[in-house]
């Protein structure tokens, strides 16, 4: 049954991607706002369709923390494709720092390419960092928020990677605040899992971190500590709730 539900889910969202991308040329010369609105209809559909087909819903906490008067760098844990989709309806107009290979996927990648992403070569080292800062500042100035997953890749619940410095460095250099986000999507929609577990994902938006007077490393530490503490509170896995810093026991 879970397989049938997942099949229905994927047929729906892939058909919708094809439809959206086929008509996207109509929006190439429109203001970004229009194009963004059009392209993000796919995410809205996907989240709604997920609830219908896989009975996977979500709830949000901390909407008051989204600043009104400035663009921000959103730093979040990464467990699933879900968080990249849902943020489109929860957070202001934004784009992503992503691995450039994603843009090469048929349809999906073409759609992504229209969203002003910062597409980096993961093995690019210093060059990639420079690109994040330069293009990041450009996007922030143009009124776009930026989503960065500092751990770089999707990880299963309970595992952790060292936080890359790019997002925090962008905050230090640009002076724009960091908005931390923590969720447990991987407990319901794990990476590389075809079927989804029914239930309710929790996504928490934390207090924005003002980078004034902070070094990038300190910003990263604050974000990581907030994400770890918050994760222990929202996880549905008992062992992770008890564990130190959200690490596996």
């Amino acid at each position, binding site marked *: 049954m879970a397989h049938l539900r997942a099949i229905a889910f994927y047929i729906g969202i892939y058909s919708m991607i094809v439809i959206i991308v086929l008509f996207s040329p109509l929006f190439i010369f429109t203001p970004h706002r229009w194009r963004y609105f059009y392209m993000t209809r796919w995410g809205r559909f996907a989240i709604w369709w997920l609830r219908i087909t896989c009975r996977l819903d979500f*709830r949000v*906490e*901390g*909407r*008051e923390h989204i600043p009104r008067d400035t663009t921000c760098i959103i730093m979040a844990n990464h467990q699933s494709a879900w968080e990249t989709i849902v943020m489109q*309806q929860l957070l202001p107009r934004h784009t992503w720092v992503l691995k450039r290979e994603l843009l090469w996927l048929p349809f999906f990648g073409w759609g992504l390419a229209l969203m002003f992403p910062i597409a980096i070569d993961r093995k690019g080292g210093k060059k990639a960092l420079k690109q994040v800062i330069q293009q990041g500042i450009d996007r922030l100035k143009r009124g776009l928020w930026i989503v960065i997953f500092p751990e770089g890749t999707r990880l299963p619940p309970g595992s952790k990677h060292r936080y890359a410095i790019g997002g925090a460095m962008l905050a230090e250099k640009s002076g724009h605040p960091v908005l931390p986000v923590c969720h447990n999507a991987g407990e319901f929609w794990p990476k590389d899992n075809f079927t989804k577990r029914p239930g309710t994902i929790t996504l928490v938006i934390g*207090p924005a971190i003002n980078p004034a007077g902070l070094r990038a490393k300190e910003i990263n530490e604050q974000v990581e500590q907030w994400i770890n503490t918050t994760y222990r*509170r*929202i996880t549905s896995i008992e062992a992770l709730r008890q564990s130190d810093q959200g690490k596996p026991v």
Partner: protein
Amino acid sequence: MGLIILDRDGVINQDSDNFIRSVEEFIPLPGSLEAIARLNQAGYIVTVATNQSGIGRGLFDLNTLNAMHDKLRKLLAAIGGQVEMIAFCPHNPDAGCDCRKPKPGMYLEIARRVGVSLQDVPVIGDSLRDLQAAQAVAARPILVRTGKGERSLAKSANELQGIPVYADLAAAVDALLSGDK
């Protein structure tokens, strides 16, 4: 899924004429957290709108307010409750802002962020100004007797005519949920 807006001091937690200035002073009223969890289970999006002029007056800072709300959310998480948004007005009463109740600015901001209409949304408060703000946006005002509730009833009997009154948040939620069925 319906939206509901609660006042904070005197509805969710004990109020004080001297402001709630610290995490230690933030003490939930009996049954209020369980009432919020029941709302969540019934499918409500629970939000809070609270005047916190103590910040504008310099009595406590934003970090302290965040810590209070962190405490609230931790206590709620333990019983399966959850608050989607806690809107607050940090300004002094004489600052002339649009958010301080009885102005409806915070309710409008909640509606904008959550993406729903305020029409007939239940708004539970203990002061007249909570409910005036609700009336200004065609929401559904409900008074509780906790906090400043009794005082509000005595002082503003006329203005509060026709508004349902309950002993506390738990009783108001009971009535709301049984009425929904």
